[in-house]
């Protein structure tokens, strides 16, 4: 059987993409799978700290819908940011700038998955959860990607709200409402986001400058960014312990919260003090890596306490 496809005439520049579309893993990469895993994890914790019960099948389908919704917003982000992804080494090999998938294809894929994920979540769980998922997708793809990212140094501060919403959606799935538990988890992720990303931005400042992204180190300078990383960490450490005060974080969570909070403070001070050369890079990467570990440990503690009978109340 002969396969035929359109081609471009000799006097027309060839497009950067192949006309037959990308490979299956390229479409998967458009969904930012690592972010999807984080979203599933934080949404699951939002579900387990909620007062309520959900049938396991509904819970699994809801988590799947939330993950696909997050993936869809990542896909739309890659569609919009293909021009700046192409000039940054960290993102230049993504499917669109690398020419493996056309931007039109990515747009269609992202829009389809956005609508499908919201529809499935609404039918499986409830329309509050679906509405929150739709808001998250629009916030990330439109408010953050299309507006804030290229407009203000507060881009990842405000845009961090999108990444902080999955626990709220998780609680809405289980209880049909938004409670203080998920709002506290939202606040923790929200305040955690700036020191986490600015640590990376300190090292990648030149690349962000080349791409024209007004990250904090490029706009306010590295010194101001370092101070802000410390201030956010100072605020984050006690905020991380609020679940204990509200009674849904127990002894295990408290220990991890105290040790992790002190670790965040120590790493942020290290970033403040080490301002040049390899020491600067090591301090920033240390902060970046430890911040991931800190958030993962906090949420894992909640999951373990609520799901495996490890909860020992302190208040």
């Amino acid at each position, binding site marked *: 059987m002969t396969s035929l496809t359109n081609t471009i005439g000799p006097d027309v520049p060839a497009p950067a993409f192949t006309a037959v579309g990308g490979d299956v893993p390229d479409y998967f990469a458009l969904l930012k799978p690592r972010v999807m895993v984080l979203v599933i994890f934080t949404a699951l914790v939002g579900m387990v700290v909620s007062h309520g019960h959900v*049938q396991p099948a509904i819970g699994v389908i809801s988590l*799947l819908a939330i993950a696909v919704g997050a993936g869809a917003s990542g896909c739309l982000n890659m569609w919009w940011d293909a021009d700046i992804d192409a000039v940054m080494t960290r993102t230049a090999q993504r499917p669109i700038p690398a020419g493996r998938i056309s931007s039109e294809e990515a747009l269609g894929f992202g829009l389809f998955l956005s609508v499908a994920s919201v529809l499935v979540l609404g039918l499986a769980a409830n329309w509050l959860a679906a509405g929150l998922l739709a808001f998250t997708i629009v916030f990330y793809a439109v408010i953050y990607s299309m507006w804030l990212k290229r407009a203000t140094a507060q881009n990842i501060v405000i845009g961090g709200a999108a990444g902080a919403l999955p626990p709220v959606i998780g609680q809405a799935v289980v209880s049909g409402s938004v409670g203080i538990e998920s709002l506290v988890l939202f606040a923790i992720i929200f305040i955690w986001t700036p020191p986490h990303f600015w640590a990376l931005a300190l090292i990648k400042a030149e690349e962000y400058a080349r791409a024209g992204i007004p990250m904090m180190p490029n706009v306010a300078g590295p010194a101001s960014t370092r101070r802000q990383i410390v201030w956010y960490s100072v605020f984050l450490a006690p905020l991380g312990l609020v679940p204990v005060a509200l009674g849904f974080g127990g002894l295990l969570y408290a220990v991890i919260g105290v040790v992790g909070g002190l670790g965040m403070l120590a790493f942020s001070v290290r970033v403040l003090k080490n301002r040049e050369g390899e020491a600067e890079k090591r301090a920033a990467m240390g902060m970046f890596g430890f911040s991931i570990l800190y958030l993962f440990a906090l949420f894992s503690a909640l999951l373990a306490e609520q799901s495996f009978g490890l909860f020992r109340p302190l208040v």
Partner: protein
Amino acid sequence: MPDPEVPYRQLTPQEEARRRKRSIAIALALGAWVLLFFVLTIVKLGPQILSRPL
């Protein structure tokens, strides 16, 4: 029918293989979509939906 005004070319074997894999992935995704709605229906409405009088 291909438009005779538009130039066409034959796909390379690599492009053919890529398109075939993509078609299989789409078929699997559609199957999963149908299964998902089936499970959702049973869970939401209860298993008696399968033995209701028609």
